[in-house]
């Protein structure tokens, strides 16, 4: 009984209202996304069906039955799309296509934009705040489940490339930022958290590093505000930039994993851009966050904190700072790589992995609802001083260098196949 009691978080009831709010917000948004998607498909079908019918007739006339059968499948799909909204050829739903296709206003964007608008205009009553705070980490089980999208060859190829890139970018950024900070006379606390924050995964890395380098609350407020500011700006700018530049899904996934300063924003940006982008981004980010303990140890060495009792030792630091949940992600990759029939796959309808794949999207949606409702302009207003200068320099440098690298690497090396 005492074991059971110890599993319950003290004061758990305070989390209920905010969590429920995020669930309701996610359900509403996912339904709007579903409706927009349905009408967009119908709009495209309405325009495309006459062309397909003409092609079908031509192929039948010349006796190409294989080609005609292929076109027939597309015709069936288009007719089904029209049937779902009760429409017919000639009907138009341009508004849906504009929002969903042209403007890319999908569930991620809706949750973030509406969440930010609510938080910063009408505000969120205090009773909801604890639950909103713990909705964000629900993305974590979602990431573990995403393990079913990969096989070991993906880990070796994309993850291997990702690990090399992440290491270069992380240590390159951290070393540069810490060195410049020291030369500029910035305190060890601020230089340390900005090096870790801009190098690894934003606020998560600041939380891991702040106690070690002895960052002051004021420094933390500056650093977190700066990371959130640039993370949020990049979240909304990079998907449109990626489209304008013509990046492939995989290239964008790698770019966001290397360039976006904060984890939550990078996952949101990649999911927004597309499923392939998200798969690449999550895998490279997994490689990136495994380096958190190393960057903490680097900060201890760089600032000479060993003699000040801040060095907990290699294994103790690994135990305290290693993201253990990532092992669950790799365990699922292992299971998926074995191709056991009992688990099926994300595309095998009614199989366990298919069911898990459905769940992940809901966990992401609730997490994104939490992120949107947590993004406060007041928090970002705290960005300033030296932290802002360091953050803006690192953000711009990582964005440009990351883009150059993914353009040089191309798509194939960064593409997650999932064993297909």
């Amino acid at each position: 009984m005492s074991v059971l009691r110890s599993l319950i978080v003290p004061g758990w009831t305070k989390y209920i209202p905010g969590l429920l709010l995020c669930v309701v917000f996610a359900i509403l948004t996912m339904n709007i996304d579903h409706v927009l998607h349905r009408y967009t498909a119908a709009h495209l079908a309405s325009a495309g069906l006459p062309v397909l019918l003409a092609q079908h007739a031509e192929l039948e006339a010349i006796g190409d039955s294989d080609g005609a059968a292929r076109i027939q499948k597309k015709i069936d799909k288009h007719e089904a799309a029209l049937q779902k909204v009760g429409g017919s050829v000639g009907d138009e739903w341009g508004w849906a296509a504009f929002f969903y296709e042209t403007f890319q206003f999908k569930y991620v964007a809706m949750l973030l934009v509406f969440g930010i608008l609510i938080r910063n205009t009408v505000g969120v009553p205090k009773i909801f705040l604890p639950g909103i705070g713990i909705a964000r980490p629900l993305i974590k089980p979602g990431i573990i489940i995403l393990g079913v999208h990969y096989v070991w060859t993906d880990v070796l190829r994309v993850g291997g490339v990702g690990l090399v890139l992440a290491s270069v970018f992380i240590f390159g950024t951290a070393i540069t930022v810490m060195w410049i900070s020291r030369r500029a006379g910035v305190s060890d606390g601020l230089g340390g958290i900005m090096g870790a924050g801009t190098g690894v995964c934003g606020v998560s890395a600041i939380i891991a590093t702040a106690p070690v380098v002895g960052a002051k609350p004021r420094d933390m407020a500056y650093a977190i505000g700066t990371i959130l500011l640039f993370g949020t700006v990049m979240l909304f700018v990079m998907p449109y930039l990626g489209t304008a530049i013509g990046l492939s899904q995989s290239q964008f996934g790698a770019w966001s994993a290397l360039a976006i300063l904060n984890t939550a924003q990078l996952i949101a940006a990649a999911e927004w851009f597309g499923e392939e982008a998200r798969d690449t981004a999550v895998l490279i980010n997994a490689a990136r966050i495994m380096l958190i303990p190393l960057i903490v140890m680097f900060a201890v060495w760089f600032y000479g904190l060993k003699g000040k009792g801040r060095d907990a030792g290699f294994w103790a630091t690994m135990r305290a700072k290693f993201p253990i949940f990532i092992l669950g992600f790799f365990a699922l990759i292992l299971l998926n790589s074995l191709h056991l029939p009992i688990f099926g796959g994300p595309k095998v309808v009614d199989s366990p992995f298919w069911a898990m794949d459905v769940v992940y999207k809901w966990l992401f949606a609730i997490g994104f609802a939490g992120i949107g409702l947590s993004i406060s302009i007041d928090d970002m207003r705290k960005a300033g001083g030296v932290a802002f200068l360091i953050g803006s320099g690192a953000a711009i440098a990582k964005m440009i260098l990351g883009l150059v690298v993914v353009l040089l690497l191309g798509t194939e090396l960064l593409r997650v196949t999932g064993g297909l």
Partner: protein
Amino acid sequence: MDSDTDSAERDDRPILIAVDGESHTHAAIAEAARLARSLDRPVRILHVEDPYLKQFSNEIYAQGREEYLEHVDRCLAEDGHETVRVARDRLREDGIESEALIRKGEPLDAIRAELESAAYSLLIVGRKPRSGGWWRQRRDLPARLAAAGCSTPLLIVPGEKTSNCKPGTTADGEKD
């Protein structure tokens, strides 16, 4: 007689000054000292430890949450005691002894709770010197205190632009 007694009681009500350790509160402390001397009122110093930074321990990949939370608590406590010590020393220079209160929570809520828990003749807060527009000004702590409609009179003392800032938390969780 009743009226005289009431007025005598009101005279004893202390002045409350909210401090956050930032440079702009120096002007507010000086003003509190001047008023306390001329009105012959006791002064209470209030510092609020704002747990604003703790909310970020819920970041997706945050590692070492407990250590981070302990670190924030420790720093806020250290900064709080230092802030109060500096304010008391400054008042003592003018021959005014003061009582110090340290509270935890959202600054606006904590200040309002203190005003409701005891009778004060005046609340003094400093305002950061800034070039921002009405948007920034209307969301800062003095503006929100004024909008909160407390019955205690509020005196907002504008700070002077200076680079003499000490690191530490701020009562309204903002930077200079």
